[in-house]
């Protein structure tokens, strides 16, 4: 008698990925290295909205997302958005080859050992995290579709409208 409702619950749980209304987590206080070797500490960027976009030369959807994220950076930088494109290639020369093909204005940072990816507990590639003015991760995206950029834009504008 108890079997059927339990079974239905388990089936529902397996089929549906519930979105639990958990409180936003603080972004880990990581430090990245940029193209020139300078350190970038995420904590130093508080006060503004940060979009961390994890990419790799071998990630096929990144070929589409990379220029579009860069365009978003150019569009919203003056309003307070900082975009950091975090590369996770184990061999940086592959990242450099990709960057030669795709011009960019946003900040590029390197995470060849995956420490930062691990700190953010990435579930898929590509992944993006949007951090609010108070340093909390408010939005997480996995994968890249035609709708992703407009989602980024509306989420960033929402966070920019919030005070500190």
């Amino acid at each position, binding site marked *: 008698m108890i079997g059927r409702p339990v079974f239905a619950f388990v089936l529902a749980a397996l089929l549906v990925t519930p979105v639990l209304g958990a409180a936003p987590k603080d972004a880990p206080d990581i430090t990245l290295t940029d193209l020139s070797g300078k350190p970038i500490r995420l904590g130093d960027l508080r006060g503004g909205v940060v979009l961390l976009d994890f990419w790799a030369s071998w*990630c096929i*959807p990144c070929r589409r997302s990379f220029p579009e994220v860069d365009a978003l950076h150019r569009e919203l930088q003056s309003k307070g958005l900082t975009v950091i494109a975090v590369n996770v290639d184990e061999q940086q020369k592959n990242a450099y080859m990709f960057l030669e093909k795709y011009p960019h204005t946003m900040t590029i940072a390197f995470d060849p050992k*995956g420490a930062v*990816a691990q700190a953010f507990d*990435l579930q898929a*590639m590509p992944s993006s995290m949007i951090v609010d003015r108070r340093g909390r991760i408010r939005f997480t995206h996995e*994968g890249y579709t035609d709708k992703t950029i407009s989602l980024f834009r509306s989420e960033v504008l929402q966070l920019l409208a919030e005070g500190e």
Partner: protein
Amino acid sequence: MSWKTRVALALTLSAAGLSATGCATVQPWQRGLLADSCMVFDANNTAAYMTHWQEAREGSMGGFGVQGGGCGCK
């Protein structure tokens, strides 16, 4: 089904079962080598043509599965 078929099927299913549990998980950002064209199954159409050609000349068929592995990108 002959005993040989049963044994072979059992071995493959066990291997597949072990596969599914996985030992150390490869993290999504560590898949660079797995995404290389040399590491991907059936990366090109030449392989499909050769399978077709072989099946036209030999008595056997198929058995090979479908893409997985690779970059694992969403």
